[in-house]
């Protein structure tokens, strides 16, 4: 099923090549110019003393991929679903609903990582980075884990909402939360103490925290990773169940 979804995604890219490629390039440039450039004039160094533009680089990749995973999931689980297209047909294929959810997530994550890859190249053209191969490998693993979690959240959101206006408000709230509430571009210490605690213990920030822990202390926080993996597993099952209920199957 994953192969079928990837093929379809490639066909869609091919059929809308100019707009797709444009977005893949314009989006990271906008984030750099409108968020990172002004922020580096305000926050010169991170609280641990690293130059902001170097500190924010992993957060930038997390942010780009977090948003990059959204279009495919929104399109199929909300847009095409409420217009009674495609997803209903997929639901009739011989796969369990959890397999469908998992396959969608893998496909969306691959696309998001592709966005992240382009963004990383563009970023390195503006600002030099000092990550080594091992850092990139860990980054890739933790971004993937983060995207599995976030993708599940997006799927639940897309399946729960049936109205376009409510969907847009939900998207706006989600993107504000993703951008500012996970420590990607602003450290948690900038928030009041209660907020800091809440944000630190919300699972969407676990992968990013783990990566910074690895960068600063060379420690892989298996506890946070295991908790995230467990949440991802049960959330896939839940979304499978939810999808089945949505189709009354």
């Amino acid at each position, binding site marked *: 099923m994953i192969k079928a979804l990837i093929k379809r995604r490639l*066909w869609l890219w091919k*059929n809308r090549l100019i707009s797709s490629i444009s977005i893949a390039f314009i989006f990271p440039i906008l984030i750099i110019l409108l968020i990172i450039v002004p922020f580096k004039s305000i926050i010169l160094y991170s609280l641990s003393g690293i130059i902001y533009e170097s500190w924010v680089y992993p957060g930038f990749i997390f942010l780009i991929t977090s948003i990059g995973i959204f279009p495919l999931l929104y399109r199929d689980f909300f847009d095409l679903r409420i217009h*009674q297209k495609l997803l*209903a*047909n997929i639901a009739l294929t011989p796969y369990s609903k959890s397999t469908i959810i998992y396959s969608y997530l893998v496909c969306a994550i691959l696309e998001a990582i592709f966005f992240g890859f382009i963004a990383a190249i563009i970023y390195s053209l503006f600002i030099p980075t000092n990550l080594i191969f091992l850092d990139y490998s860990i980054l890739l693993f933790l971004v993937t884990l983060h995207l599995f979690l976030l993708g599940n959240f997006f799927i639940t959101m897309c399946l729960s909402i049936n109205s376009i206006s409510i969907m847009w408000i939900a998207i706006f709230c989600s993107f504000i939360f993703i951008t500012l509430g996970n420590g990607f571009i602003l450290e948690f210490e900038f928030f009041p103490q209660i907020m800091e605690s809440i944000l630190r213990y919300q699972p969407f920030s676990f992968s990013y925290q783990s990566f910074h822990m690895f960068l600063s202390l060379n420690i892989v926080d298996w506890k946070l990773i295991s908790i995230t993996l467990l949440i991802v597993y049960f959330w896939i099952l839940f979304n499978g169940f939810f999808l089945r209920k949505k189709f*009354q199957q």
Partner: protein
Amino acid sequence: MAASITLKKVGKIIGGKTILAGLSFGIEKGSLVAVVGLNGAGKSTLLKLLSGFENPNYGQVFLHGLDMNKRRNETRKLIGYVPYENDLDPWLTLEENILFNAELFNVKSDIAKKQIRKYSTLLGFNNQLNQTAFKVSGGIHKKTMLVRSLIHNPDILILDEPTGYMDAESIRLTWDLIKDLRGDKSIIYVSNSLNEIEQAHDRILVFDNGKILMDGHLDTLLESTIEYHQFQIEFELLTDDLYKQLKNIPTVVSPNRLDNTFHFYGRTRDVFFDVISKAPNEKKIDLNLKKLGLRDLLDSEFAGKGLD
């Protein structure tokens, strides 16, 4: 003949309303079965249950002896489903839409492409395969969905208005293909085009309020339910008095009028002469005698109470 589809006391309730009520019937392998009925009779819901799109609230559906609820993955491979509404991906080409389904059912790409060429040629839209779905007409969508439903070579085809949105030529090509597939595949379809149903069926299921009201070949249904002839006599002037006289003839059944035309049914052809003899001096402009068809059968008077 062995049953391809078997329903055992299947019921569906939506929003507290019973849509299907304890349906039990079987469909033989290779047969072409039409489902007809009024809007809201439960026809599309039945197709959704048979396709696995929805689950019944109670009862069981078996495909080739496999319980659809317990053997989902196996039974889904047996089914090709064409929904009423277009559900193609609007941004994929027609061919990509079909190939996507082929991939989902693990059909090899070269085999799928051959099948697409074959069926699209038969249906007369092979030169439009590279069109993006949102750019083509509803009839082409329907044909694409039909080919998509056939791409994994299912044993059972479930079609909701298979010729919806199509022009006359497309309707002919589509029925030629469906009739060709009969025998190899069990086909169950819903249509509001009674002419098409009259031409293409082994069996008709007449639905009313979620129940099967009649079941059989049209000829059998007509014989068993209404051995009537339909008559129409157009007078130069059909006065109210004359109409009253004519409609009170004991052998005349279900009389009505439209302007100067007297319309009625009778068990034998002789009824016609009974009417003529009651109005010997009135000038007649036109006469019509018709064998009853599916439309007559479905007329509420027929389906509900019968002519008597």
